[in-house]
């Protein structure tokens, strides 16, 4: 310990250009707090404006004090399609989160704990599908849905989001299931458990951390999606649009009505933010776990 301190003292004397430590610490704090402020500022500005009235918003910046009320939120929920769109978003997101996770879990289990020829090749192919841009699929799927009369229906986006979400879901779950201890499954099979029992009693419960991370990703991805929604729903039945579609329509119709746009945007952000702050740990673990959806 003393040797290290001694060495430090020596280098401190030798390094003539070095800035004294307390000053450096203050510098770090200034930069970090400054960056935090810059990152918060855009959101804070619109948030403040969503509580101000129309005249105040049009004539002065959000930083100018004025009266604040919930009127904009009441108006946007009562007058526009935002209330309906919120329900639509829920209808779209919940099934589109549950279905791909279950389908991916079956596949991930087969990839992890069953032997079959071409297993690795097939898995690499599935992972390769991760980077097929959504745009590649829009036109043929649109025509396929048209043949079945599905355009504008929730079922269309449930199915599409399941397909789009699978490569990442399989990748994440397979990596997690594959790293579970082999002995657990071997002893279960010796005790006469069938693969189905091993899957539901062992693999699935042990994969809960990965499933949680995946559920958050898929939930946020679907909730925040615009392209899939406006392509498969927007053109045929605008009344079924989720929040993202409804808010982006407001952007063109409201123009400079920032107080209403702000209220609508924050309504659309409420649920993702709650999910994010409640489950941040899983979210971060999922991201650092290896990959993220392309």
């Amino acid at each position: 310990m003393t040797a290290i301190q001694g060495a430090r003292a020596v280098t401190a004397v030798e390094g003539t250009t070095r800035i004294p430590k307390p000053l450096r610490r203050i510098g770090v704090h200034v930069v970090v707090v400054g960056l935090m402020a810059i990152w918060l500022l855009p959101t804070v500005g619109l948030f403040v404006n969503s509580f101000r009235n129309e005249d105040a918003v049009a004539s002065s910046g959000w930083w100018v004090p004025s009266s604040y009320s919930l009127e904009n939120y009441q108006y946007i929920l009562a007058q526009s399609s935002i209330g309906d769109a919120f329900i639509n978003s829920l209808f779209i997101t919940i099934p589109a989160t549950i279905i791909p996770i279950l389908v991916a879990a079956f596949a991930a289990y087969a990839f992890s704990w069953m032997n079959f020829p071409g297993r690795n090749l097939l898995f690499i192919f599935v992972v390769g599908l991760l980077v097929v841009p959504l745009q590649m699929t829009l036109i043929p799927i649109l025509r396929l849905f048209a043949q079945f009369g599905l355009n504008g229906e929730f079922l269309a986006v449930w199915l599409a989001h399941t397909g789009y979400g699978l490569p990442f879901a399989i990748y994440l779950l397979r990596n997690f299931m594959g790293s579970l201890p082999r002995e657990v499954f071997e002893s279960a099979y010796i005790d006469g458990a069938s693969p189905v029992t091993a899957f539901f009693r062992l693999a699935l419960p042990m994969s809960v951390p990965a499933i949680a991370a995946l559920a958050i990703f898929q939930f946020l991805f679907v909730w925040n999606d615009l392209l899939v929604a406006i392509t498969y729903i927007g053109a045929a039945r605008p009344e079924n649009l989720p929040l993202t579609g409804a808010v982006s329509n407001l952007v063109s119709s409201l123009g400079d009505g920032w107080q209403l746009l702000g209220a609508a945007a924050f309504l659309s952000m409420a649920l993702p933010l709650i999910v994010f702050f409640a489950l941040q740990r899983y979210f971060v673990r999922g991201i650092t776990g290896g990959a993220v959806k392309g």
Partner: protein
Amino acid sequence: MDPRLGTAIIVVVGVPAVLVGYIYGTELLLRFAPERQKGALRPWLWLLPALIFLGVFLVYPTIGTIIRSFQNTAGTSFIGVENYIWFFSSGEALVALRNNVLWLVLLPLLTVGFGLIIAVLVDRVRYESVAKSVIFVPLAISMVAAGVIWKFMYAYKSPGEPQVGTVNGAVAAVGVDPVPWILNDTLALNTIALIVVMAWMWTGFAMVIISAALKGISAELLEAARVDGATEWQVFQRIVFPLLLPTIAVVSTTVIITALKAFDIVYVMTGGQNDTNVIAHLMYQEMFSFSDFGRASALAVILLIAIIPIMLFNISRFRAQEAIR
């Protein structure tokens, strides 16, 4: 109450029940299979639902789009590479291409640059988790919401009028004329303004991953360098940064793919006007504004071709991981 509620309940309860039932059903089915084929058959039954979804929603449309890109507007005849020739000769498409290149270069630079700086700095303060949450949270909101937030940031009123947008408010406060950020296409200023929005969202992503890698660097190694008289900058430059490079490569590939597929921000903030279009947005316009599915397909194929090198990189990284496993 709501007729949709019934449907939703059926889907939320019914579909998982069907899928779980399917897996149990396969076991029943396999009882009738000859003993030797059970092991060979079972994995394919487990994979079947996923393979159907992947086939219908990714493989089939990818092939379909490639074929469609060689057809005319109505899809009635093959016209060779005409749609691709259009892409490389139409002014509008070339602007989109130029903007995508800008996105592709600037977005990784900004996100990785800020992500690295923030990850290194927050490592030294006690309120690290709060600071990280603040930087990270924009990633959880939709690009539509981010677009609204930043359209307001950039809001512009002519000089003399009170500025309501945050950026122009600050600009006016120091006595400079306000700038119409997302209208001004001089030096692609408006496209850069849009890229900043995306960087604001994705810096948290880069920061979280780089920060995790940073925590994995052994403290003894850094302390040893410091004992040997290395300055903090030398420690960063010679030890920390090289060790972070593989992580930075991973983050960059993901951000590059995001940049290539940029759509929502452009759709919400400018609608592609004033030379801010990008390929993904131009494709949407060709689909729904001009109903030219041939050109739209060609644009999608161009996106895919741009992504393939990154895909190969990702797969090789995956193989390297497998080798360690």
